[in-house]
């Protein structure tokens, strides 16, 4: 087990380095010069342009910039935004809880609806219900997030007036960030009824962000369930005359869930990617919106830092999933 953990952790360092290089080069490959963008139509004299580049440290050779970036990273310094001058790590830490909260709610929504839908579809294979679930999953999977979000806003917020259009909480409340998770912070604040406002604001973005994982989970559950339902031990259980519901929910489901859980783990990366669009539509103050804005301004340190930190989260989740897998299924440890 020790060797296995060690091997897995050993992979983290090169991955991390790869990501730093990738993020560093990528944002610079997008044409556009932060200084020219700051000046806009106004323009700058060539001397002033050079002076500002020097002030921002962008006049040095790329390789040199990269190594000094790495050196700073080694000391935990993610740099400062070129535009606002605020420390990148601070920005990330203020905004990330909002993304995490949204992603968690979206995943909850996807699991709570996706699992039962998949199970039902498998049990009633070939029925209208099955076809409906499968068609729904296909549609959900191919739904463009931007369009889907606007559609739901038009319907539920503008026409019906059931949900707020955007934001994280009614602008009338001011909740002091403690944990950064609005649902928790509202309860800690002296206006606990703000909790309902926060919940109200969370519903629509969570549905939009959760739609694709929901479709994936429903399909995965269905196929995994079908496979398990065909196994001998399930047939034996049925032949013994056990309660059919019990057979499905206890005997079959437990085994069917293993691949589903892996899939859920894999969804984390996708979820963060989807969050970028969802946050932009719903004006959700998370890292997605921050990254989009930073890319638009060619704010190199913010984009680099953002990508790097998000990658760390994904790497960490994958590592945990891997390690857990190793614990649950000892055969994995000895493979490779």
């Amino acid at each position, binding site marked *: 087990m020790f060797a296995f953990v060690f091997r897995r952790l050993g992979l983290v360092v090169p991955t991390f380095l790869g990501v730093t290089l990738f993020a560093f080069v990528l944002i610079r490959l997008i044409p556009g010069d932060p200084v020219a963008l700051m000046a806009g*139509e106004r323009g700058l004299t060539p001397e002033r342009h050079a002076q500002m580049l020097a002030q921002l440290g962008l006049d040095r050779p790329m390789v040199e910039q990269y190594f000094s970036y790495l050196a700073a990273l080694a000391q935990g310094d993610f740099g400062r935004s070129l535009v606002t001058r605020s420390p990148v790590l601070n920005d990330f830490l203020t905004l990330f809880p909002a993304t995490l909260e949204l992603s968690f709610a979206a995943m909850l929504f996807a699991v709570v609806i996706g699992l039962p839908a998949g199970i039902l579809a498998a049990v009633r294979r070939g029925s209208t219900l099955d076809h409906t679930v499968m068609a729904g999953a296909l549609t959900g999977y191919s739904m463009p997030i931007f369009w889907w979000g606007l559609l739901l806003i038009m319907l539920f917020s503008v026409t019906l007036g059931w949900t707020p259009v955007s934001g994280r909480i009614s602008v009338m409340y001011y909740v002091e960030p403690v944990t950064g998770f609005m649902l928790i912070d509202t309860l800690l604040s002296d206006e606990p009824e703000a909790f309902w406002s926060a919940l109200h604001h969370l519903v629509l973005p969570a549905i939009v962000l959760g739609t694709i994982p929901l479709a994936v989970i429903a399909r995965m559950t269905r196929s995994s369930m079908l496979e398990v339902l065909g196994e001998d031990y399930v047939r034996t259980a049925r032949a013994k005359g056990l309660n059919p519901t019990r057979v499905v929910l206890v005997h079959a489901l437990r085994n069917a869930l293993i691949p589903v859980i892996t899939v859920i783990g894999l969804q984390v990366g996708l979820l963060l990617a989807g969050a970028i669009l969802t946050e932009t*539509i719903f004006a959700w103050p998370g890292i997605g919106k921050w990254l989009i804005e930073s890319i638009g301004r060619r704010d190199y340190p913010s984009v680099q830092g953002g990508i790097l930190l998000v990658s760390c989260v994904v790497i960490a989740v994958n590592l945990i999933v891997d390690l857990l897998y190793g614990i649950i299924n000892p055969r994995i440890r000895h493979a490779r």
Partner: protein
Amino acid sequence: MNKALMGAVAAAALLGAVGAAEAKTMVYCSEGSPEGFNPQLFTTGTTFDASSRNVYNRLVEFERGTTTVQPGLAERYEVSDDGLTYTFHLRKGVKFQTTKGFTPSRDFNADDVVFSFMRQLDPNHPYNKVSGGTYEYFQGMSMPSLLKTVEKVDDHTVRFVLNRPEAPFIANIAMDFASILSAEYADQMMKAGTPEKVDLEPVGTGPYQLVNYQKDAVIRYKAHPDYWRGKSSLDTLVFSITPDASVRYAKIQAGECHVMPYPNPADLAKMKEDPKVNLMSQEGLNIGYLAFNVRKKPFDDVKVRQALNLAVNKAAIIDAIYQGAGKAAKNPIPPTIWSYNDKVEDYAYDPEKAKALLKEAGFENGFETDIWAMPVQRPYNPNARRMAEMIQADWAAVGVKAQIVSYEWGEYLKRAQAGEHQTLLLGWTGDNGDPDNFLAVLLGCDAANGGSNYAGWCYKPFDDLVMKAKTVSGQAERTKLYEEAQVIFKEQAPWVTIAHSVVYQPIRPEVTDWKIDPLGGHYFYGPGLKD
């Protein structure tokens, strides 16, 4: 007001969070996060809306809804006969805001003015390097070369000495970068070792004070109780940051915000019909143009420039691109600016005459060139790509083959600045309503070298007039010079002047006394909310 907002207001009022039960809150769905809260350091309207326009005042200010300069923190000023010395007499009894981190011990005075200008002017000023220390607008308005000294005469008098006479000076210091910060606050923060706080937690004399800012989400202000023009009728002002234009529109419809900037052009037709929205509009203080790079052949030849002016069917462009929200432009300044010369005659659409002129210039068989089109929507040009295609077709009809070129926005600006283009589409929105802000800034010789003169056009007779207009102070005399300059501009044709666009501002019907700012700002002192 919709139910959700009403409920929230009621709840907040009950809890005393807003104060009085009648507390009025206006919600503005702004388009993005401000870069910071000090208008000296940044150049975007988003930042100015969040800072200078509502938190700060300037010595002189633009009267709301106009480009007329009126007294601000200075009650009056005198100019010496040589035009080099400006003496400002400051208003007495003006209170700075009291915030979490600062309680003023004195009223506004000359020290604050000196501090605010010297921070930007003097590289050795203790605050010069704080928060990055790039003062782009101050630089852009040539303040470092213009200002000799800014000195305190007594507590309520400040003297500015210039290196050369500059008629637009007063209009220039009504701009956002010239906002007055508190010197006392700056001193305190410097002593406490936290000078950046001055730029992040602003203290001004303006109608609203910042309460808190949640990055990318909400900016909250409350009315400055001792505002020298009188406390605002709105108790609270909230910026709800909403980057997507369609979502902003949805929020107006749902009553979640009262005012929004920059509507999506595609939504305008619907907004006009929508009873939940009051769609205001006003001619913008802008110009969209096509500039010829006169440093390159064949555009150094005035006949070629005139011919290509004649070859463009402007009426068709206005119809197709602006769809009624624009007016054909003949001068480089919009008709809303004083000195606009209405007698100038535009080039009529005349392909035959264009061909004849091209023949005279030795281009009987035409030539090949390029048209640069911006990749982004700008207030003065809603669709540059499409506009370029129309011009391309018009020019093809007279034998000029043009290729359309586009780059990412920052790259576009950088390459255009380097003069890589042959012809390019661009535009300008005025900063202060002074003709100089268009004629000298966009077409003067100084700006031809890496400034915003993208035609690279430096024509002595024109430049002399515009430079002379800077040094004389009577508006009547300046008008005459500018009118003459516009005639020369048209004849020399460094640009195809295309359009002045209309600016739209959707507001909720319950918003009262809203005025569109011709300079593109959003001001919340003055407008109110119906009960």
